[in-house]
């Protein structure tokens, strides 16, 4: 028992060690490089995915994980989306392939982007409310007691809240996943939910096809449109909900600040943003008020005016735009 515990602790320490080493290497080696934050983010995304795998090996209540993710935006904005989300890592990896092939990205029209942002709530509604309603029709519950309803939501055949953990599903899963190769189970965000749901509609044969189509769509989508899922991901909706309430205007503590006078309206921040946030460009100054921003900090990296954009954590500046002007060596 103790040996097992020690084994787990050792595993965690090794993982943490690699993470720290990777981060230090980037910070020191690429110190002067304009795009060091992008490299840093990539390392952290990979480390996080491995960490999530380990997390899921423990019999931890996934509900707790979900609550943590939904509460995090209060303090860190959508930092999770930009730096920790495994699905984000896949989409970024596909973007890297596109960049290597020198294929240009496509922009979604601004109106569509905003509409998708609101679509999140619709999806949230469907998963959290409509599905249980359908379920209770399909699998009628004996009584309208608290316990049976909770059972339906959390342990029933569809476990609606689980969908919100969809983007966290790592490539390799510690449970029986949809794909098995040499004793290792592979999975992909939302695929298990897609299989579950499509089982109701289709028969076994088409279920796997549906799953494949879903994977292909997200691949192609994120190849041409950067971070395509993030624009309507239901997991990323908590911040937007919070920001509508007056009391939460200070949220998030980690956010981007803009100095109006230093801004020359050159438009670089708008162009480089993977999710097409326009508030950084449009707003005059002060705290950038948007629930789309994933805090990937690409705009701060690419802003060529010293101190114009800053990433502030409760008052203190963590990272600010600087006069980069070295030819980029990223691609």
């Amino acid at each position, binding site marked *: 028992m103790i040996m097992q515990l020690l084994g787990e602790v050792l595993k965690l320490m090794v993982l943490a060690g690699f993470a720290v080493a990777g981060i230090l290497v980037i910070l020191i080696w690429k110190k002067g490089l304009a795009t060091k934050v992008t490299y840093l983010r990539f390392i952290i995304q990979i480390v996080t995915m491995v960490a999530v795998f380990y997390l899921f090996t423990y019999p931890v209540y996934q509900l707790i994980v979900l609550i943590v993710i939904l509460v995090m935006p209060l303090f860190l904005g959508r930092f999770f989306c930009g730096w920790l989300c495994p699905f984000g890592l896949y989409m970024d990896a596909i973007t890297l392939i596109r*960049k290597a092939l*020198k*294929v*240009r*990205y496509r922009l979604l029209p601004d109106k569509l982007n905003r509409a998708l942002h609101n679509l999140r709530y619709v999806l949230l509604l469907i998963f959290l409310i409509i599905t249980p309603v359908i379920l209770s029709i399909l699998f009628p519950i004996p009584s309208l007691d608290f316990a049976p309803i909770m059972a339906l939501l959390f342990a029933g055949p569809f476990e609606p809240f689980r969908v919100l953990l969809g983007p966290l599903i790592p490539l390799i899963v510690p449970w029986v996943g949809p794909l098995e190769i040499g004793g290792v189970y592979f999975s992909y965000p939302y695929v298990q939910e897609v299989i579950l749901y499509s089982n109701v509609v289709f028969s076994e044969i088409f279920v796997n096809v549906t799953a494949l189509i879903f994977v292909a769509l997200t691949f192609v989508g994120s190849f041409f449109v950067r971070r395509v899922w993030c624009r309507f991901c239901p997991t990323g909706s908590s911040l937007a909900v919070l920001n509508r309430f007056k009391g939460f205007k200070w949220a998030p503590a980690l956010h981007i600040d803009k100095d*109006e*006078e*230093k*801004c*020359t*309206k*050159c*438009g*670089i921040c708008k*162009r*480089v943003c993977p999710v097409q946030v326009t508030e950084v460009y449009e707003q005059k100054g002060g705290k950038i008020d948007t629930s789309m921003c994933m805090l990937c900090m*690409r705009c701060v990296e*690419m802003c*060529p005016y010293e101190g114009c954009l800053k990433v502030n954590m409760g008052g203190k500046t963590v990272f600010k735009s600087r*006069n980069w*002007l*070295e*030819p*980029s060596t990223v*691609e």
Partner: protein
Amino acid sequence: MKSKSEERRYVPEISQKEVEELRSTIKAASQKIIAENIERMKKTAENRPEEMKYFDDIANFFGTREKEIRAAKEKGRKVIGYMCLFAPTELILAADAIPIRVNSGWYDTAKLGDRVVPVEVCPVIRSTIGAKMIGLSPYLELSDALISVLTCDGMTKLGEILSDYKPVWAMTIPRVKDSAQSLRLWNDEIKAMKSQIEALTGNKIDRKKLKSAIELTQKATKAFRRLQELRKGAPVIMGRDAMLVNQTYMWDDIKRWTEKTEALCEELEKRAQNKMWACPPDTPRVMVTGTPMIWPDNWKLPTLVEEGTPQGVLVADELCSSERLLYDPVGVDEWNMSDMFNAIAERYLMASTCPCFTSKDGNEDRINWLLTKIKDWNIQGVIYYVHRGCMLYAMEYTRVKKVLDDIHVPVYYLDTEYTREDVGQMKTRVEAFLEMLTARIDI
């Protein structure tokens, strides 16, 4: 009997004899003025930086650079001239052509221009017309084509007048900067310009060439900014010297200019460490904003400021012949053709503070630029410099004055012409302004 194609649509007849006479007189006068200006700049600064020698050489219009361009042309390279800052230099460089700015700074040719257009027209325009009439400017003469960006009325018609002599490619620039349709239009104009340049030079602009052209101008911007940063503290370089360095970018070979500017910055950094100031650190720090001041003749105002009693020093400016040239870099996100083109188009259109633009907030960009400069460069007074005839700059004055009054920075409106006659009057005013700044410092 003149054929239709030889008939000039605007410029009246001028005999070859007169042309040659005028050219030789004005050229001789110009060379004298260039030498004189440089002498005066040397006298004002105590121990002028050594590296300035290179820039003095390039400042001579009829010297080294002209020979270099001729030699390049013989080898088959093309020269593309431009009048306004919006011409996409990177595209020109990517096609292995030489970009060169052809605005004229000669007073004497403005009088010639009066034969073609009324006196009320912007003097820079009249001077350029006059220079073309007698073939004075080597850069204008050596251009194979001219890019005319239709920023103001004068520029629009200048393009037409010059098209009597050279192929002129007009680029429409939208006057409203920040709308989606404006950016689309400008993007299309840039793409059209790419085709024009490729057709003239016979070189295709591909990804690799465009990437190195952009990297070249990014390096130049880096050196350029480094120089301006060095003017933030106590003065290590006089304003006229820095302005000359800035301006030579318009004519020089960009790679070499970058190297020499970096060398100059090295020298200036050493001076800053050893506290070798170009003038006493408490000299009133002045910023000029307004219409461009082109070398060699239109050096009137900077000379008055830096040779006046009391002396002032120009530490920053908002002029398209100086600090507006290169301050903003081309910010490329992904090095594919689409993003490089977007980056180029946006860099030229959106960061500009030219008053020919308007937007929801008017020309807010210019106000912000001025405010940032005033704070970061510790400016004590601003001279608002306008060429008589420029509606755009003249009309923005009251807005700028209000903003500067709010932060208690004195601003003085100075309008002038391409003439030497009003130096006396200007001297009185400039010196009174400098006196005012000194008095404020005393208190």
